[in-house]
């Protein structure tokens, strides 16, 4: 205890320095005058509280860590049934979830369906980034750039050439993939941390270009009135455009704006299911295994004849293409896009989703995307603290469980032996 006293005092002092000026005093702007205002007693008592907590924590760190060792570490996977039973239950479970996904929107409010659609976009983005960060172990901080490429591809093609959503969807994916390839080719030879910074810079460049290329992209004002997707040519608007036909007229039902919302939701569900299917397959294909091997040990990969650049590039391109699809759908859903939607914060949110879900784990990423988009909606005050919490979550997760809440389970492969 004696020996712990000095570090504890030190930590308390550090905590005080970290909080006293920045929280205890606040700068207020009144016209041209800047003034400082001391915080109220409540804030100061919080600061005092924090200092004491840190002090006590440091003082009793050893007994505490001993206590922690005795507590069993939570193992979520241990709660699941073993792999044979799971393999048998899986198809049923998947069928149940899929049916639920399609039936559910008809029973709830419009707002809920709309939120679900947004969540699905994040699921797609999370799954896409998971390829790059989780599988291949490449830290991409400019993922939002590919999302922007997808969104602007649809917005521009639709505005200037009148192409429909369904035509633009593959184009957006391809174009985003091309961007990923062009950017990735030079930078993927770089070490991991350089790659992170370069992708971060690239994300910013794309945003700056979109902001300044005013006569094409509309600059900061963005592009509005983007056409919504149609169902085999049937539109979901109240009145049909020239030569078009609307959904409600075709089926002879009265117009209901929630048809459109549900339709968008169903499109998102389809896209997400497709994403999950494709990524699931790829993960078990040679290229998917190569991604993970590269994450584990690049030198060993080279010694076995795998070309690291090509493999990284394929992960990068593949991840980018999913962002492109998501971006295209995002533009269609919003009907309006501007560079505001594609800031670094967005990249950070997607990264937080991947990190929380467990790098490499698909189910984990899906659940994390749901949690991260729905929680802020449930409590409005939460919105204010959202980014603070995302940052904190990233730090804590890495310290506590770098493999995420739901770590990836290795596939079980049966060997036939003679």
């Amino acid at each position: 205890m004696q020996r712990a006293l000095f570090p504890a005092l030190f930590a308390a002092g550090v905590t005080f320095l970290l909080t006293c000026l920045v929280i205890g005093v606040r700068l207020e702007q009144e016209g041209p005058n800047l003034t400082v205002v001391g915080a109220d007693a409540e804030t100061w008592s919080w600061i005092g509280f924090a200092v004491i907590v840190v002090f006590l924590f440091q003082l009793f760190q050893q007994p505490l860590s001993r206590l922690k060792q005795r507590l069993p570490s939570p193992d979520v996977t241990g709660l699941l049934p073993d792999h044979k039973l799971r393999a048998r239950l899986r198809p049923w479970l998947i069928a149940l979830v899929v049916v639920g996904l399609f039936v559910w929107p008809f029973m709830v409010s419009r707002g809920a369906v709309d939120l679900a659609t947004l969540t699905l976009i994040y699921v797609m983005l999370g799954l896409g980034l998971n390829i790059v960060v989780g599988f291949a172990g490449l830290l991409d901080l400019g993922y939002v750039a590919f999302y922007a490429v997808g969104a602007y591809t649809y917005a521009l093609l639709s505005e200037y050439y009148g192409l429909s959503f369904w035509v633009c969807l593959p184009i957006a994916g391809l174009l985003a993939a091309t961007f990923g390839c062009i950017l990735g080719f030079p930078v993927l030879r770089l070490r991991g941390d350089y790659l992170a910074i370069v992708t971060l810079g690239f994300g910013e460049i794309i945003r700056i270009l979109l902001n300044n290329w005013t006569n094409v992209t509309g600059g900061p004002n963005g592009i509005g009135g983007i056409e919504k997707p149609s169902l085999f040519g049937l539109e979901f608007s109240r009145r049909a455009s020239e030569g078009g036909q609307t959904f409600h007229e075709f089926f002879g039902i009265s117009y209901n704006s929630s048809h459109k919302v549900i339709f968008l939701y169903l499109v998102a569900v389809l896209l997400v299911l497709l994403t999950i299917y494709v990524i699931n397959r790829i993960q078990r294909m040679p290229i998917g295994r190569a991604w993970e091997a590269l994450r584990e040990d690049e030198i060993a990969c080279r010694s076995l004849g795998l070309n690291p650049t090509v493999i990284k590039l394929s992960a990068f391109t593949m991840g980018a293409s999913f962002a492109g699809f998501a971006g295209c759908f995002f533009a269609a859903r919003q009907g309006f896009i501007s560079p505001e939607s594609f800031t670094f914060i967005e990249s950070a949110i997607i990264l937080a989703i991947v990190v929380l879900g467990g790098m490499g784990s698909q189910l984990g990423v899906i659940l994390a995307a749901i949690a991260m988009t729905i929680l802020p909606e449930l409590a409005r005050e939460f919105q204010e603290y959202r980014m603070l919490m995302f940052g904190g979550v990233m730090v804590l997760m890495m310290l506590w469980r770098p493999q995420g809440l739901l770590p990836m389970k290795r596939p079980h492969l049966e060997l036939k032996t003679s």
Partner: protein
Amino acid sequence: MTETSLYVLQQLINGLTIGSTYALIAIGYTMVYGIIGMINFAHGEVYMIGTYTAFITIIGLLTMGVGSLPIVMLLALMTAIIISSTYGYAIERVAYRPLRGGPRLIPLITAIGMSIFLQNYIRLAQGSRDLAMPALVSGGIQFGDPAVFEVSISWMQLIIWVVTLISMTALALFISRSRLGRACRACAQDLKMTNLLGIDTNRIIALTFVIGAALAAVAGVLLGLYYGTINPYIGFMAGLKAFTAAVLGGIGSIPGAMLGGLILGVTEALTAAFFPSEYKDVVAFSLLVLILLFRPTGLLGKPEVEKV
């Protein structure tokens, strides 16, 4: 002299001013990288916190009636250095030390989380809008032909140059003369070996974070006064620029960081002179990518051979 050349001269002066503050921040990146081989992603936020503490101290002192400019600036520098260093230390303790020796991706993510956390922490505590302060130091010297183009060097710019020069000299002396400085150099050479020789490398690593943070705080005070406005988001761009400077000069090399900062500052100022100013950020990034591709060791860096 013609108008264009005077104009370019003015831009050079402005570029050197900004560049010297980039250099101050870049040293933090380079020193940390030199020792643990990792980028401190949260370094830009330390700079941002430095500007906030400086503003708080200056306004506080002015309200209390302390009017002497040197005293105000000195106290602002000291407070900013103390608070920012504490943040630098905390970043190392929380985001780097517990993860040492693990996969490299992990501390990278914690550092980014840290950066997001700190940015929003300041946003919540101090508000997200721009805060503007009336100029403390005004005036300067003018030369050139008033009829053609008048080149001016403001007193603030001179202060920036002098303070930067003093800080750099102090750092150079510390690194080359003091025992701790020698330990720093030893760690940069071979961390494991230095540890075996009985030097507490954890302390040395923490020290580099602290020194880097202190220099970033100096830059924060200077740039805060120079621009007169701050917001919680300035750390992002400043961090990226300073990182570019560090890579340009050769990451791991302290003279390189200084050189890189100056070159980047001048390049940006010249770009801003002839193109719309939004593109100066694009130029900085493009420069970064080009260096990484064609000369990843930068101007003064040592080549790295990957040990197999």
